[in-house]
């Protein structure tokens, strides 16, 4: 979970806010990269994070025989 929370922090704050200026030098298709993280990428990453967490917890539940 600590890993997931650090990804949450890195994608939203580090990529979307702190590093937005250097990243805007790069392009992702028609998007400046930093702007894309701030307006799109971070939301996709949030969804994936919850997916991974829910799946991992399901596995844990099964391993300890809880259903």
């Amino acid at each position, binding site marked *: 979970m600590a890993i997931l929370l650090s990804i949450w922090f890195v994608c*939203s704050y580090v990529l979307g806010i702190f590093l937005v200026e250097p990243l805007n030098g790069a392009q992702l298709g028609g998007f400046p990269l930093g702007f894309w993280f701030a*307006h*799109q990428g971070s939301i996709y990453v949030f969804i994936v994070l*919850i997916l991974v967490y829910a799946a991992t917890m399901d596995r844990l539940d099964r391993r300890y025989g809880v259903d």
Partner: protein
Amino acid sequence: MNVQAWTYLIVAATFALYIGIAWWSRVRTTSGFYVAGRGVPAVANGMATGADWMSAASFISMAGLISFMGYTGTIYLMGWTGGYVLLALLLAPYLRKYGKFTTSEFVGDRYYSDAARLVAAGCTIFVSFTYIAGQMRGVGVVFSRFLEVEVHWGVIIGVVIVFFYAVLGGMRGITYTQVAQYCVLIVAFLIPAAAISWKITGNPIPQFGFGDTVQEGQQAGVFLLEALDALHRELRLPEYTAAFVPGKKSMIDVTAIALALMVGTAGLPHVLVRFYTVRSARAARWSALWALVFIGLLYTTAPAVAAFARVNLISTLHNTSYSEVPEWFRSWETTGLISFDDQDGDGVIDMSDGANELTVDQDIMVLANPEIAELPAWVVALVAAGGLAAALSTAAGLLLVIASAISHDIAKSILWKDMSSRKELLLARVTASVAVVVAAYFGISPPGFVAQVVAFAFGLAASSFFPVLVLGIFTRTTTKEGAIAGMSSGILFTGAYIVYFRLIRPEATADDWLFGISPEGIGAVGMLINFALALIVSRFTKPPPDKVQQLVSEIRLPRERGAESA
């Protein structure tokens, strides 16, 4: 058929649907009224959470706000979605596992104190009322603009509908109408967005379209965002995609506001209570995922709509003669949401910085979008129904939270402990009815500060609820005194800062702010104060009783609690 006839038809059809659902799912037990009998499937709960969470502000105002803010609009995009990660990982499954009906109840039990529960219930009621007034106002505005009835009649019609399904159906009725409302609002948001994206870039998926190239006109072949930046340079405005340049918010301020909104989301009582309605902690995790998927659908489309609207607005209006403005400009001009002030007297609209002659209200961006893009009348009507769905669903969720805070947290557990379930249910219905009437009053004659307070409700929720809940779940040793000290200092600091800079010194600039953080973002600092004080005070006070420490270890084990009281 014209726009108005279509609007009557679609709005009446959706209202009939909501009432039908409410009748089918009416309830007779307190468990059904507060938490829908805990039988809501994860996907349905995700949709209901989406509708509950996305208010008139998300549907009507957000894309317009982003359109004017450019990069800085990310504070809303990230702030209002990132909180779900915190919710799913840190709060929802554990609160669901603990069971019971309300979040205040958890606070009261975990901190073995009725005072803590009372403070939590008070914060719930305060936050919810500021919110609900805004929703009722949204209902009134949509009614008056599209159906040409007076704002107060619009509010009254809205209130009657909400009254019917919230009071009769309780949480069960609300949940299933919210599922229907989500479908209405997302269709109403996506159809115009896709049509506009297709029109400008030839790509019908807005999320990709706004990274694509413009198809027609002078800018053909150029990436849309580059074209937009060029337009902004022409107007001597900061570039749309640029961050932290003069004229935009600073890095620390963006960070603080995003954090305050995220943490505030995770602490909002009407969102938290949705996770009490599912079957298990496991279902709570999955429904948080579904909620964010459904919310993300709108939230990734909104920035695209914002960029398209901005391009459309500048290219149709800048340097256009006032006598040649398009039809939609005239019809919205009568509502006062767009206006032209010809300062240099040449009859041509100038939008450049310093000489701007055009005033545009942010709400127009989504509502007028289908007209600007010349879409058929039924699409325009659908947008009106979508705005109503967004406002009504949020209002209903908030009403229920207020009713349960009063009837369950205050009346049942503190005033009359031996009240029977039947009486409690009756009281819950009565309080919901009273709350509806109060909300209607605020909707018809809103106190001037309501709109501002709504934005600050997040800061207040962030600085009061979130730290206490997280510490309550993840530490065994946080004490009653620590929690109360943390909650009250957090909310007092945040409240005082907001009052000082909004009411006493509204003219203050970024240089006067603490670390350059604006009042919108100060909740993030309040939250840190809350955490710090709670931890420090807990070290020097008597540790919690064994029973409470036992309880904390138990909710973190992956095992269901025994039979629950209903």
